[in-house]
C-alpha cells in the first residue's frame, strides 16, 4: 500500500469542563482513533449526535489540539506544529460546515468571502483573484453575477455552494465536509451531493465526509467509519457497511433509516435518561447492545480486522 495522505495514530481528545461547584469534569470526545486515508479516497464518518465526529474534524484541521496521538499529513508529522507553521496545513486541508446560514459572514459580499482566503494565503493580483473566484463560482454551478451579492440573498443550497467554493479557493487536497447537507431539503441535498461527487472527480480531491445519515454517507464515500462514543466501532467499504453491517450499532443505524416501502418497527421501552452515556469500562455500546455479554462489560473491544479491509470493534460478533 502506498503512503497514506493522512494518518491518524491513536488520536485522543479530552475536554475539561469546570462544573459549577468548581470541580472538573472530563469529556472524552475522541478516543484512540487510528485511521489511514489514501489520496483520492472519500472516507465517510457516520454516528449519532455527540459521538465526536466534529471534534475529530477540528483535530485534523487543528482548530483543537490533540490530547494524545499523532497526525501525519503526507508523510510529515503535524501534531505539534505551532500556529505560525500551520499555514501550509490550512491550505492543504479545508472544511465545509453544516450550517450555510452562520458560516458565511453576512456583511461580506460573495466576492469578498471568496477572495479572503486568497489574500491571506497567496500573492495573487486583484485581476487574478477576480478571474479565479469567477471560475470557482462556475465550478460550483453559480454564475459571476452573484459576486456582488450578500449571503442572505441566497437559498440554503446556494449558500452551501458558496461555502464549498470558498473551501476550494486555496486548492486543497483534502476537503472535510461536516454535515454539509443536514440543514437542507432532500431535493437540494441531492443537488449538493451530486456537485460534490462531480468536484471530486474533476479536482481529484480527497474527502472526509461526516454525516449522521448512513444513506447519505454511502452515496459519497468509498469507505465508511462508524463512530460511537468517540471511537470507531466499524470501518470498511461503504457498500459492505450498508448491506452487510457487522456491528450491532451499525445495524441499529441501518434499521432506523427511513425509506419508502419500509415499515416502522414497534417501539420498545428502551429510553431512559442515561441510555446514551458511554461506559468507562468495557464496550461503549454495552447499554444498548442486544448481544451484550460479561466480557463486553469488563474489556474494551479493539478495532480489529474481521475480514480483509473490514474492521470491527465488538466481542459479540464472531465468524460463523
Amino acid at each position, binding site marked *: 500500500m502506498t503512503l497514506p495522505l493522512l494518518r491518524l495514530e491513536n488520536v485522543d481528545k479530552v475536554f475539561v469542563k469546570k462544573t459549577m461547584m468548581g470541580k472538573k469534569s472530563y469529556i472524552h470526545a475522541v478516543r484512540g482513533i487510528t485511521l489511514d486515508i489514501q489520496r483520492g479516497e472519500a472516507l465517510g464518518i457516520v454516528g449519532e449526535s455527540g459521538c465526536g465526529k466534529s471534534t475529530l474534524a477540528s483535530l485534523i484541521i487543528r482548530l483543537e489540539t490533540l490530547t494524545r496521538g499523532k497526525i501525519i499529513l503526507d508523510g510529515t508529522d503535524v501534531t505539534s506544529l505551532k500556529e505560525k507553521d500551520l499555514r501550509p496545513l490550512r491550505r492543504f486541508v479545508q472544511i465545509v460546515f453544516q450550517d450555510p446560514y452562520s458560516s458565511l459572514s453576512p456583511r461580506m459580499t460573495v466576492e469578498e468571502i471568496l477572495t479572503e482566503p486568497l489574500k491571506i494565503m497567496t500573492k495573487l493580483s486583484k485581476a487574478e483573484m477576480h478571474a479565479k473566484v469567477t471560475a470557482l463560482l462556475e465550478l460550483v454551478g453559480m454564475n459571476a453575477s452573484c459576486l456582488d451579492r450578500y449571503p442572505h440573498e441566497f437559498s440554503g443550497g446556494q449558500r452551501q455552494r458558496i461555502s464549498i467554493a470558498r473551501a476550494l479557493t486555496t486548492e486543497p487536497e483534502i476537503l472535510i465536509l461536516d454535515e454539509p447537507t443536514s440543514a437542507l431539503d*432532500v431535493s437540494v441535498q441531492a443537488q449538493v451531493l451530486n456537485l460534490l461527487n462531480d468536484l471530486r472527480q474533476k479536482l481529484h480531491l480527497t474527502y472526509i465526509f461526516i454525516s449522521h445519515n448512513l*444513506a447519505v454517507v454511502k452515496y459519497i464515500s468509498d469507505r465508511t467509519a462508524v463512530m460511537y462514543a468517540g471511537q470507531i466501532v466499524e470501518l470498511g467499504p461503504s457498500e459492505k457497511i450498508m448491506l452487510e453491517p457487522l456491528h450491532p450499532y451499525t445495524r441499529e443505524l441501518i434499521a*432506523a433509516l*427511513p*425509506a419508502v416501502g419500509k415499515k416502522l418497527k414497534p417501539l420498545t421501552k428502551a429510553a431512559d435518561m442515561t441510555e446514551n452515556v458511554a461506559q468507562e469500562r468495557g464496550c461503549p455500546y454495552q447499554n444498548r447492545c442486544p448481544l451484550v455479554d460479561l466480557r463486553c462489560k469488563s474489556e474494551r473491544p479493539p478495532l480489529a480486522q474481521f475480514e480483509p479491509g473490514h474492521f470491527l470493534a465488538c466481542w459479540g460478533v464472531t465468524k460463523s
Partner: protein
Amino acid sequence: MTSTDSKTTGAAAAAPILQIKDLNVTLRKEQELIPILHHVNLTVHAGEIVGLVGESGSGKSMTASAVTQLLPGGSKSLQGSINFCGEELTTKSEKEMAHYRGKEIAMIFQEPMTCLNPVFTVGQQLEDVICTHQHLQGGEAHARAIAMLENVHIKEPEKMLKAYPYELSGGMRQRAMIAIALSCSPKLLIADEPTTALDVTIQAQILGLVKEAADKAGAGVIFISHDLGVIAQVCDSIAVMYSGEIVEAGTAVEVLTTPRHPYTKALLAAIPGFTPKGAERLELCAIPGMVPDPREHMDGCRFAPRCSVCGENCTAKHPPLHVAGDGRSVCCWKEAEAGDTAITAS
C-alpha cells in the same frame, strides 16, 4: 397493506375530524399582497395520519397555521372553509380559538424549546397543562403526568418530571413535548417537522410515538416533512404541496408506489437510499432550481420551470385538478391530456 386499507375505509365512513375546503390565504405586507395558499383541500379522519410533504417554502407550515389561526400578523385574507369536528374555525374569534389550541388541537414542532419553558421543570409544565385543561388537581394531576410520560416510553418518569429541559437530550426533549401535547387527548395533532433535527435512531422512536397517538388514542394527525422517506413510514395518506398548492394527494401506498405528478416523482428520486450491490453509483435526481417566490405570478403550472416533462399547455394555463374516484387527485397537464376516465374538477 391490508391493515392500512381497512383502517382508511373504516375511518372514511365516520365524519372527518378536519376538513379543509378550497382554502386560499393571502398575506398583506405593507402595500404588497402575497398569495400564500391556493385552493387547498385536505381531510383528516380520526386515527389517520395525513402527510404534508414538499420543499422549504411550499406552504406546509402555513396550512397548519391556518388551521390553528396563527397566521403571521398584519392583515390577511382567508377564504374557504376549515371545518373541525363540525365547527367552522375560520369565523371563530381569537378567544374561541384559544380554547381549541393546546387542548383539542395540539402541535409539536422541530425545535422542542419553542414549546418548553427553560425555567420550569418538565413536571411543572406538564402538570400545569393538565390542571388548566383537564381540571385535575395535585395528586391526580401528578398521576396523570406520570402516565403521560410512560405513554411516550420514558423509563423513569419521576426523574424526568424533576428535570429541566436543558438537562435532557434532544430526543428526550422531543418526547417531553409530545407528552405535553398529548396530555389533553387532542382530537387533532399537528406535527411540523418533529424529527428533522434528530438522529435517525431517535427519529425512528419519535415516529413510533406519533403513530401510537393515532393508533391508540385515535387522534387525527397532520404530519409535515420535506422528506418523503419519513412520510412513507408513518402516513396513511399523503398530500404533496408545491408553491402553495396541493399538487397530488391520495393514499400513502398509491402516492408512493405510483406517483403521478412529476414533482412527486422528483421528490422520490431525490432521496438517497440503497443502491443494489455492485450497481454503479447512480446520479441522484436533484430537482433543478427552487420553489418560486409566492409573489411571482405565473399563468401556467407553478412547477413548470423545473419540470422535466413540461409541455406547451404547462406554461400557458394553470393545470386542472384531476380527481379520480379513489380519492387520488393530481394537478398536472399530463394527467389532463392523457386521462379521459377521471372526472375533471377545476
